[in-house]
């Protein structure tokens, strides 16, 4: 306002607090040191646990305390991994599973958000469909694997399984997020003359981004489950196929290697999502 108004100094910007202008004190440095130290200790224990797990596995199998025919052992995995990578098209199988997971994930995300938006749009539609959704979500979708194989063929039944497993949770989580939009934020948009479509596009969707990230997190794990289950039944490629194939010829090395690759893939996807989540948390904080 006008410069003669002394009240301008009443509110100070929180974001511009002059924290960094001074030298950090010794106590603060020590506190930071302790924080770093704690972080490192957690990391070290995690790695230790992982080593312990593989060490025990190796030891128990070597000493025949468990039957290595049934469990294989870690040191046998690496040669199998190399062998599969060179002659067994491991990259191809991994890529097939990854691709199918991405297709299922994107499809169920888009479909889920679209259906959730439709439910948000019309309370009537929501009230009609609600019990069906609850039942569909509770149903073990794995029961559909053979049917999907007949209906959709070997490729599309894998996608179909991923979508069937992931989409209902996405619908429900996204819808809950849309419903939880602060009614006053919607009222504000309405006082400015917003149409229902504008409320959806400018308030409800952007305001639900943290919820949608949570849905995304669940969705990607479930898509992977769907893909592997689909591949068990119907596919001639993918890590699920490798697992089933390996177990049928009793090559546990192959099964275990495929599972380790699967674990690495899950970890990688988790890391990517954690990044996305951290980036949005900064905005929505």
């Amino acid at each position, binding site marked *: 306002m006008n410069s003669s108004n002394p009240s301008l100094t009443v509110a100070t910007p929180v974001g511009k607090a002059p924290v960094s202008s001074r030298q950090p004190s010794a106590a603060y440095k020590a506190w930071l040191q302790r924080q770093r130290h704690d972080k490192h200790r957690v990391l070290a224990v995690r790695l230790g646990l992982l080593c312990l797990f593989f060490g025990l596995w190796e030891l128990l199998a070597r000493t025949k305390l468990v039957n290595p025919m049934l469990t294989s052992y870690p040191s046998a995995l690496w040669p199998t991994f190399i062998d599969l990578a060179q002659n067994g098209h491991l990259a191809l199988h991994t890529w097939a599973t990854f691709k199918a997971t991405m297709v299922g994930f994107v499809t169920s995300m888009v479909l889920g958000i679209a259906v959730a938006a439709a439910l948000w749009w019309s309370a009537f539609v929501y009230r009609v469909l609600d019990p069906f959704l609850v039942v569909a979500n509770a149903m073990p979708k794995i029961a559909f694997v053979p049917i999907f194989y007949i209906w959709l063929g070997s490729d599309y039944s894998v996608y179909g399984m991923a979508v069937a497993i992931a989409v209902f949770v996405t619908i429900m989580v996204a819808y809950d997020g849309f419903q939880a939009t602060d009614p006053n934020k919607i009222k504000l948009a309405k006082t400015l003359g917003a149409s229902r479509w504008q409320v959806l596009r400018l*308030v409800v969707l952007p305001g639900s981004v943290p919820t949608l990230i949570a849905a995304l997190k669940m969705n990607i794990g479930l898509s992977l489950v769907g893909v592997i289950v689909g591949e068990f039944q119907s596919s001639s490629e993918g890590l699920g196929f490798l697992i089933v194939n390996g177990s049928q010829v009793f090559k546990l090395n192959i099964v275990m290697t495929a599972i380790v690759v699967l674990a690495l893939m899950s970890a990688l996807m988790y890391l990517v999502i954690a990044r996305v989540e951290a980036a949005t948390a900064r*905005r929505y904080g």
Partner: protein
Amino acid sequence: MMNPAQVASPQARIAVRAVSLNYFTAQGETQALQDISLTVAPGEFVSIIGQSGCGKSTLLSIIAGILEPSRGGVSVDGRPVTGPTASIGYMLQQDYLYEWRNILDNALLGAQIQKRDMAQARQRAVTLLQKCGMGDFLAHYPRQLSGGMRQRVALARTLVTNPDVVLLDEPFSALDSQTRLAIADEVVDVLRSEGKSVVLVTHDIGEAISMTDRVVVLSRRPGRIKSEHQIRFPSHGAGRPTPLQARSLPEFNTYFNALWNELDVHVEG
């Protein structure tokens, strides 16, 4: 005190005619407002006071066109209000800034919704934010700002689409008392300089007296107009005192006592 019959002047900016509102729940029917008539002249600041639940915010929603009255009607500049219009700006109890938009984009929300010329709107938004002392924070996000600063952005957002009428629904109730006094001064300053007509709803008698030209008292539910008080500060001489100055003038206490008695406050419980 004014005679309610004389308020229906032809040059009124806002005319509320015999508005009643009933609303229904499964438990029964409630009459929230009963036969409210009120006019606001161009450039006039009117406040509506009453206790919680007397329907004063409901009346504001009806004037804004987001709630339809059961009987009666509202017109702005002679045109009946049937839904939200660009000529009315509404400032809510809290800022409700969208945390995913920066300050400038928040201020531009109305222009975007009403599909205005965005280049022009951007220019006006920057000017208004500067006028509200927020010129240095255009690229900041709401959570980086204090409550007072956020409410200033909300004021700029209300004014970007250049409404003739601004409705204020207890706009300072979420702020601490020092910030309230400071922001009230700034808001009145900006609104007067922009020549707006203002309807302020509040339960704070001091805020009503210091900020507006006329105070309308609503009764308990169902809300009816109990009385109207023209607020003048002859001891200040010509021109209107700022809200902060008004609070230390002798007339302030006289009005305060009169309104306090009108409100007939009982502490319950």
